[in-house]
Each structure stands twice: as C-alpha cells, then as structure tokens.
C-alpha cells in the first residue's frame, strides 16, 4: 500500500482576502516500510501536507493516490476514482452515497501534536476502541484491537478501566497514540510525538516507532529534532514555503553544507563532532555514526586498527 502525491497544490480560503497557498506543486511517494522524517520550519506546509496523506484535506490541484483510491482536482473539478473497481464517482450526490471519504482515513493513521486533547471516553479501553468501532469493527473486535495497541505502547491491562483524565501526561499521550495504532493503518504519521517529553520518555517513544516500522508499517515523523532524524530515520523530506525542497537520506542531508546554511538546518552536535574529527585526520565512517554510543564505537574501531 503506498501513498502518492502528484503535483499537489493546496490553497486555503481561495478567492477570499485570506487566500493562502500552503502547498505548491508537491510530489512525494511514501513506499512500503519507509521510515521518513518531514522537516521544515513552521509555516513550510508540513502539517498541510500530512493532512493530505490521510484524506483529511483534498488537494485544490493535482492528484493524491491513497491505496486504490485516486483523488484529483483539475481546474476546480474534483474526481474520485476507485482503481480496483474501475469506478468513477463524478457526481457530488452520487459520490457522497457510494464513496465515503472516511475510507481514506484508515490507511494512514494521523496523530497530531499533543494528541492528549483528543481523549474523551470514560475508560482507556473505551477510548482506544472508539477508532476501530468507527470503521466498522464489532465491539469485541474493537476491544481486542484496543488491547493489542495498548500493549504495544507499553500500557498493561491495569490501565484498561482507568479514566484517561487521571493519567499522567506521558501516559495520556501513549493512550492517544494507541487509539490510532488500533486502527491498524499501513502508515503511521506523527506530528512531533516527543514534544514535551523528558529524555527517557522520548527514547521510549522512538523505540516504539522503530518497533512498529520493523514490523512492517511505514512511519512518518514530523519533527524539529535532528538527533532523532540522524538516529532513527531512513529518509528525510525537507519542506520550505510550501515546496518540497529535497528528499534524501539523513547522512546526505547533513553533509550538504550549502543546503544546510540556506535552510538554517542544524545537524545534531554528534554529527558535527564526527565531522570535526574526520577533518582532523580520524578516518571515521559517517554511515556508522548515529548517536554518541555509535560514535564512540567508531572511535574505538579506528583506534584499535
């Protein structure tokens, strides 16, 4: 299951004094099992882009393909095609009956920043089962999916009957993320999932995402944290002013000094340290430097040769 954006543009409030072009001609493919970071400063279009991936927003120009659904907009004309059934839903009324936009939302699970605010049910179990139930699961199925998701995020059965409102901030966040994982999406998209967590919490959360990615799902992280980018992800997409500037690996990104200066991206300090050592003659392999422990391992390797 892949998600493709083809020359997508999005304008907020078109034809009004508040018109704002948030995305300009963005093309991107999220392949299976990717672990991708989406970076860019506030206002670069990251959150608008991410909301196209689960069909929350539909493009004002261009095409989005989510699994076997193709949505396009050309000259203001919207088209919805189910590629499997080769059916096209052109008429708006007909479209509403046959093609539920909600179908798109289960392929990509989107977790917004500070997702704790979406909790509302009486118990953790009920809240996490809410999502699966909305997509047609029976009560039993939904509960099982909820329990599995909660186990995955590290919350045992003792949490099931508790009210989400009495949990700590970190626990609430995990419940909220479990609520999306329970939908069993093929792609998990998270906007700054470690914001506000302490270092231990951040580490646990990232290990969770790594586990999910290893198990076969694609994971997309919107983040400002370059240490996370260097340590965990395979690909980086850089957004700026509504445009997709670059899609590359973390290593290639951090080595492109000219690009870094124009976009004011700071590589993590461990990378800068490794570069300084290499510049002064130490023959480290940057591919092996992901964090401090791996840097030290590299130093050890070189010094023992």
């Amino acid at each position: 299951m892949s998600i493709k954006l083809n020359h997508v543009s999005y304008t907020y409030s078109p034809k009004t004094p508040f018109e704002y072009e948030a995305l300009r001609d963005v093309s991107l493919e999220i392949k299976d099992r990717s672990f991708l970071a989406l970076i860019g400063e506030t206002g670069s279009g990251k959150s608008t882009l991410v909301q196209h991936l689960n069909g929350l927003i539909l493009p004002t120009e261009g095409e989005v393909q989510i699994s076997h659904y193709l949505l396009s907009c050309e000259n203001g004309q919207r088209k919805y095609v189910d590629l499997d059934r080769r059916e096209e839903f052109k008429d708006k009324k007909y479209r509403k009956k046959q093609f539920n936009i909600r179908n798109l939302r289960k392929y990509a699970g989107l977790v917004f920043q500070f997702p704790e605010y979406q909790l509302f049910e009486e118990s953790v179990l009920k809240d996490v089962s809410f999502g699966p139930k909305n997509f047609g699961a029976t009560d039993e199925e939904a509960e099982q999916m909820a329990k599995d998701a909660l186990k995955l995020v590290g919350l045992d059965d003792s949490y099931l009957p508790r009210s989400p409102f009495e949990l700590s901030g970190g626990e609430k966040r995990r419940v909220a993320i479990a609520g999306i994982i329970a939908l069993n999406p093929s792609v998990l998209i998270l906007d700054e999932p470690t914001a506000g967590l302490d270092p231990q919490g951040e580490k646990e959360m990232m290990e969770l995402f790594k586990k999910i990615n290893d198990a076969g799902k694609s994971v997309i992280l919107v983040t400002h944290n370059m240490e996370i980018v260097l340590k965990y992800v395979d690909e980086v997409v850089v957004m700026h002013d509504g445009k997709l500037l670059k899609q590359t690996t973390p290593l290639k990104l951090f080595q492109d000094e000219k690009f870094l200066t124009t976009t004011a991206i700071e590589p993590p300090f461990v990378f800068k340290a490794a570069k300084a050592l290499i510049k002064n003659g130490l023959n480290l392999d940057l591919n092996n430097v992901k964090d401090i422990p791996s840097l030290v391992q590299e130093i050890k390797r070189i010094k023992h040769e």
Partner: protein
Amino acid sequence: MKEKIAVELKNIVFGYLKDTVNIDDVSFSVKQGDYVTLIGHNGSGKSTIARLITGLLLQRSGDIEIFGEVMTDDNVLRLRKDIGIIFQNPDNQFIGSSVRDDIAFGLENDCVPEDKMEGIVEEYSKKVGMYKFLDKEPTNLSGGQKQRVAIAGTLARHPKILIMDESTSMLDPKGKREILQLIHQLKRENPELTIISITHDIQEAYESDHVIVVAKGKKILDGKPDEVFSDSKKMVEIKLDIPFFKRLNMELEDNGLEKYEANSLDGLVEKLCR
C-alpha cells in the same frame, strides 16, 4: 558585601491531595542576581515549586522567604508584586485582546496612572521586539511572540524575581532561541534581576549560575553546574539528560577510552587526532 538571598525555601512539604506528598522536605536558597535553573523529570515537582514560590499554592509545612520576609496570607499579595512568572502555555496567559492590552493588564492592576501607561506599554514592547505588533490580536501571533508579550507585561511591573516555568517547552526551535536570547539580554541589562528558570534544556542549565535538581519531589543536587553535572551516572539514574560532552566522556569511559575524555570539541580533536 553580603549577597542578598532573593528566595529561600526552608523544609517545604506539599501535597495536592491529603494523603499524597508531592514536595518532600525541599530546601534551597537563590542569591539575588543569579540565573538559577531548576531541572528534573516530568512530574518531579518543578512547576509545583514555582507555584509555591509565587504563593499560588500553600505549603503544608515549611517557610518561603522572599528577600528575608516569610510569606504569609497577609503579605502574599504584596510580596507577589516583586515576583513575575511566565507560564508554559503562551495562549493561557495572554489576557488582553491585543498586545497593547495584554502588556497594560498588569499596569492596570497596579493602578499605574492612566497617562503613564501608554509610555510604559510602548517602552516594554520595544524591549521584547514587539513594538510593531502592538495592535495585533493573539490569534495572529506565534507562540514565541506571545511569550515575548508575556515577558513584556511581566517586566513592566518591575519584579525583582522572574520565574520562567518551562516557558519554552511549547515553542518550536526558533521560538525557543528567541526567548533564550531575550532572557540573556534582559539579564545583562538588569544584573540585579534574579531569574529562576524551570527547564528541560540541559544546555541552558549548564550555562546558568546555579543548578537545582529535583526528582520525585525531593531535591537531589544543588550547586554550580560543574559540580552538579560531574555525577553523570546519577543524572541518568534520575532520567535526566546530560550535556553532550559529559555524555560522551561517560561513554568513552565505559569503553575503556578514558584517555580521550574532553570538555570541548577542540579538546576532543586534540586528544584523538594528534
């Protein structure tokens, strides 16, 4: 010259509920003019301590002294005039309907004469770089801008102590940098101002005058950054981040490479590459 103690906590015990203890016998003192950082994992009690110092919460036992005066029900309103606090959420402390109105809010409360208010509002908006935004509404401002307005409104009341309760936690990196730069600038311009910053930013703590570490409601460490961060293992134990070079040195030591330990990039290059 004897240095004045701006804030002193003496054996403070506090609990949100009758049978819980969230602050367990905490004592420390803050010298006037110091930049103090208070660090600890989430839930360690840092924000609770900030609220106790400003008198928003009442301790179960122990004393809080502001410039030598013990805080009581009778003097809390007066003592509070010397304490300014900037909270974490930029929206939930923006009271006025525009930047002007928000900065003026504190002045109105202090019964500043009406004809003087305009001048003060403009002066402090300039100090934080928000002069051009005086008539903007909060929905049109970024988090960093809103925090700058909060700082202006608080400073306009001339507090002697400024508490920053995780004021940059909800900001993006750009916003964080803005605020930290502003605070350092203000410190330079007002050497007598005492700043207590509750933060997760280990670099900020490393560069402060005095670090207090709390964990699970107790004070664990208290002293100059070098002393406090020297025990890296302890920091890891209480789930705190440690400055880069301390982390690096700890890792080098664990791998039998102590001879390469350094405290700066140049030092590291020196030891490894020559």
